């Protein structure tokens, strides 16, 4: 995926995150569009790591607008992205099922890291509170990831390689 398209997608995700997500949220919980986009791009594309600056900047932007401390979300998403980059090497990146599995695991991991940093900074929120809300977040995020997968699958470019036959860019 081109950098331009990636930038547009992240900009749209940021805008929707700050506006439309509140409207579809249940009890204040809605999908994390930037996290979903980061998971989908990083997992599906070999050049997914190029999305890192956009993900970090957009999350930083959200932190400035809505977060208690600036940089916590950006730091967390950067760590999560690293985890996905490591994990994807062990999985079949052509299939939606591993993508959804990664999405289902990464969502609570994101929540846990976020909570840990906030806890260190003195936020009194309990870990159980974070855990209790994860099912709804996971459900929402998986739905968005699935939509992104089907929307972006057609953009995968097959690079023919003599060695193993094909590879996605």
């Amino acid at each position, binding site marked *: 995926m081109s950098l331009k398209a990636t930038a547009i997608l992240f900009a749209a995700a940021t*805008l929707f995150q700050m506006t439309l997500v509140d*409207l579809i949220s249940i009890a204040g919980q809605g999908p994390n569009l930037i996290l979903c986009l980061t998971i989908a791009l990083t997992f599906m594309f070999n050049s997914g790591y190029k999305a*890192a600056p956009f993900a970090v900047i957009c999350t930083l*932007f959200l932190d*400035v607008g809505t977060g208690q401390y*600036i*940089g916590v979300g950006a*730091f967390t998403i*950067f760590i999560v992205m690293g985890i996905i980059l490591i994990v994807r090497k062990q999985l079949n990146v052509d299939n939606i099922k591993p993508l959804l599995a990664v999405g289902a695991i990464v969502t609570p991991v994101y929540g846990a890291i976020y909570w840990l940093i906030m806890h260190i*900074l003195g936020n009194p929120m309990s870990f159980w509170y974070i855990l209790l809300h994860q099912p709804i977040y996971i459900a929402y995020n998986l739905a968005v990831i699935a939509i992104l997968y089907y929307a972006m699958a057609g953009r995968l470019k097959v690079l023919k390689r003599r060695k193993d036959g094909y590879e996605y860019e």
Partner: protein
Amino acid sequence: MKWIEEHRIFSVITGIIVLLFLVILVSYLSAGGTTIVGRGMQKAMTVIEKPFAQVSSGVSDTLTGMVRYRSVKTENEQLKEENAKLERQNADLKLKKDELSELKKLAKSFDFQPYQGTADDAVAANVIELDYSSPYVIFTVDAGKEKGIKKDDVVCNGDGLVGRVQETGKGWSKIASVLSDGNNISFRTLRKGSITGVLKGNGKNKMTGYLLSSKARVVEGDTLITSGVGIYPKGIRIGKVDSVEFNDNTQLKMVTVKPAVTFRSMDKVAIFI
């Protein structure tokens, strides 16, 4: 630098992490909270979000209305019924309030001498019929002989003298008001009891009369009360002098009097039996 060039990816990752760590640290040290930039962004986002929220709310209301059509319809009918009931109650209360106000006003009638403290001798009645050719010159009330009313009983309301009973029957009485030209009323001024005279209605909306003494000084605005001579007891307010003229032919001082009673808004009267 060479090491960084050789370990480019590691250096970039470490650089980003350190940078973000510093951002968090600065934010933490500045006591967190939303910055000026953050508040500005929130404000901008609120402006953008508003139309989305309105559309979303409209869609949500429409969908809710479609899904809950039957219950909403039933609820709507119940509310309409309740509304109609409340409107009826409101109208009743308004009528009662108006009636109470009328009765309070009427109660003032009993302050007139000699009726003070003798409310048992008075009958309240509603005006039920008017002669529209000369309204309130002659009118009918809904109380009659069954309540002890008889001819020439005095009729008042809270403002003053209304007239006298001209004719009565079972359930009705015809009142000849002070505006009637056949109704002679002996008066005196409230200011000075020695100034006396006789009044009668002009058949329209005022009374005319004369002073018994041509030397008596009556001025415009003087309040006139009944003198006690004739059928009307002493002390009932009749009205105020509107104009005073000297008639050269009769050598009498003529007065025009505006009645104390506002006939147009009169719904109830008290008849002293």
